[in-house]
């Protein structure tokens, strides 16, 4: 193996995605990341490689990653990788990176990705940008993104068009600002990416068949491992698919005085809109009235449904951070001066307990 030096940036090539699996199943984030990374690989004219770690037989999942656009899947199979441990996973990921020297390494920002990413970046002697919501390599694509999504006057700003550093954009300072980060002096450029933000492309069976699969026997000395997993417990609660829902109806503090009625109304409204999921602001989660997995916002989930309805939510910047990219936003609030109305497409000023039943009736009457 040639010596690994993160500052020898010209030695690094290809776009890599670390694909997380739990219980031998790929995660939705893997497909989102592969789909997005496909575009980056095309911008850069390089190969897209998925890195998949797991127990014996995990290689069976590799083709599916090809279906979303991976040219190659590197599969590391070992009983010590069946269940995630920071020690074994960071060892294998770093070994692979040091051997093949990718230019870019993307990781999903799950609780596991956020445990693995920083550990690897520190060992690989490179930078890591957390929780990115947008990525570009090509400067033209980036400028186009800025033009559509920022207040930057791109026509009067100078950009070095030949710059090929990955441009990693993320919310900064609690969602008050957006920042684009680069890692110009070291490789790989590493980023973790928020689940649910990037779009998964259509699955393509021909691409799946064409994908090259490379099986690598990882070098793990099990006797040297310090970290022991005693058990993994799945909490037997209903799985809330906020991120994937087409309709999200969220309730906030305005619903606190009669939470049960509000929940019922929110669900009925979601049904009238074609079926969806009930979300929440952090205020109700903190008050113990709603489960944390329903929280939308900077410290909760990022959603971009076709329709987002905010009932009795003031629209704090941290809440907006999780829902402002929804296709259509409807707000109901008794105070017409709340910030939620600044970003809503349609606003209804009134008491949610009175307005929502009327909304359900009106919508149902139109069908």
């Amino acid at each position, binding site marked *: 193996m040639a010596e690994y030096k993160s500052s020898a940036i010209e030695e690094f090539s290809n776009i890599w995605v670390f694909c997380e699996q739990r219980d031998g199943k790929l995660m939705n984030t893997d497909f989102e990341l592969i789909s997005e990374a496909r575009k980056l690989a095309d911008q850069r004219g390089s190969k897209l490689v998925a890195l998949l770690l797991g127990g014996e037989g995990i290689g069976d999942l590799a083709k599916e990653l090809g279906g979303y656009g991976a040219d190659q899947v590197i599969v590391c199979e070992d009983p010590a990788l069946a269940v995630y441990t920071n020690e074994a996973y960071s060892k294998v990921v770093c070994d692979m990176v040091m051997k093949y020297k990718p230019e870019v390494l993307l990781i999903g920002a799950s609780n596991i990705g956020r445990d693995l990413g920083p550990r690897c970046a520190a060992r690989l002697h490179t930078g890591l940008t957390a929780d990115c919501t947008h990525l570009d390599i090509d400067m033209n694509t980036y400028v186009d993104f800025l033009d559509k999504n920022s207040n930057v006057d791109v026509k009067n700003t100078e950009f070095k068009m030949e710059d090929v550093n990955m441009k990693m954009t993320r919310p900064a300072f*609690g969602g008050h600002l957006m920042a684009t980060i680069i890692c110009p002096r070291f490789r790989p450029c590493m980023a973790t990416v928020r689940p649910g933000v990037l779009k998964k492309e259509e699955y393509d069976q021909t691409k799946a068949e064409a994908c090259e699969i490379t099986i690598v026997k990882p070098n793990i000395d099990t006797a040297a491992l310090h970290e022991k997993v005693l058990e*993994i417990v799945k*909490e037997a609660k209903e799985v809330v698919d906020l991120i994937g829902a087409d309709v999200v109806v969220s309730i906030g503090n305005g619903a606190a005085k009669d939470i049960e009625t509000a929940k019922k109304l929110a669900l009925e409204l979601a049904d009238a809109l074609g079926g969806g999921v009930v979300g929440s602001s952090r205020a109700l989660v903190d008050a113990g009235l709603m489960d944390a997995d329903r929280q939308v916002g900077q410290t909760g989930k990022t959603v971009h449904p076709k329709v987002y309805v905010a009932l009795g939510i003031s629209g704090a910047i*941290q809440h907006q951070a999780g829902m402002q990219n929804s296709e259509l936003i409807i707000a109901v609030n008794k105070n017409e001066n709340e910030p939620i109305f600044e970003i809503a497409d349609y606003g209804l000023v*009134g008491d949610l307990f009175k307005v929502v039943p009327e909304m359900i009736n*009106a919508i149902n009457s*139109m069908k």
Partner: protein
Amino acid sequence: MKIYVCVKQVPDTSGVVAVNPDGTMNRAKMPAIINPDDLNAMEAALQLKEKECATVVAVSMGPPQAGEMMRELLAMGADEAVLISGREFGGSDTFATSQIIAGAIHHLGIKEEDLILCGRQAIDGDTAQVGPQIAEKLHLPQVTYATEIIKEGNTYTVKRALEDGYMSIQVKSPCLITCIKELNEPRYMTVEGVFSADEKPLTVLDYEALKDEPLIETETIGLNGSPTNIFKSFNPPVKGKGEMFVGSDKEMAMQLAEKLAEKHVI
């Protein structure tokens, strides 16, 4: 046993955020608080100390003003406080910060029975990277997102939160654990605590004190040395205010339904 607790003074991002022309946060213009997750780490340390003899050392990297926060932590029950402060450290990204903090802890000494506790993430960056990166630099095992910590001798059994449940993990000290708010309810300072805080040691480690630390690579610290740089920072475009319906509840609801039908949403 020594328990190092890494804490950060952060601007309260729930209020108005002040920004410098270069895109960094103008911390001087915002009220400063102790990062919430770090208080859970401090509480965990104090609870461990109540069970067995331990010295709790609060460690922070920040400007001299962070000294005030260190006094608060001493009043909460920490035995010693160490503030890592120097111009050379300013503007560090997580890679740079973790090197400096790891270097400082190495400088202070870490033994077999010792423990490092951090908050999961700081609210001014939300990266959750510094804890794991300190662990890597010190070659220690890490457990992140802790919701329960049980100590038996040098063995720690930690519940680590996952999106859909938890994992129970066993590691031996020395190790690093990052804490989340579900772990505990942080205590307040007591009057006695406030009085005794002034007698407890608060040490400042500056660049001179740390520059020869083998874990610190002086060319990758500070604003210019950090691997990652801000390329651009910007505001999202202001979306034009939408349509506000007027009339009775029923009339507003009807107008909405008509719009939704027009747009084929329903």
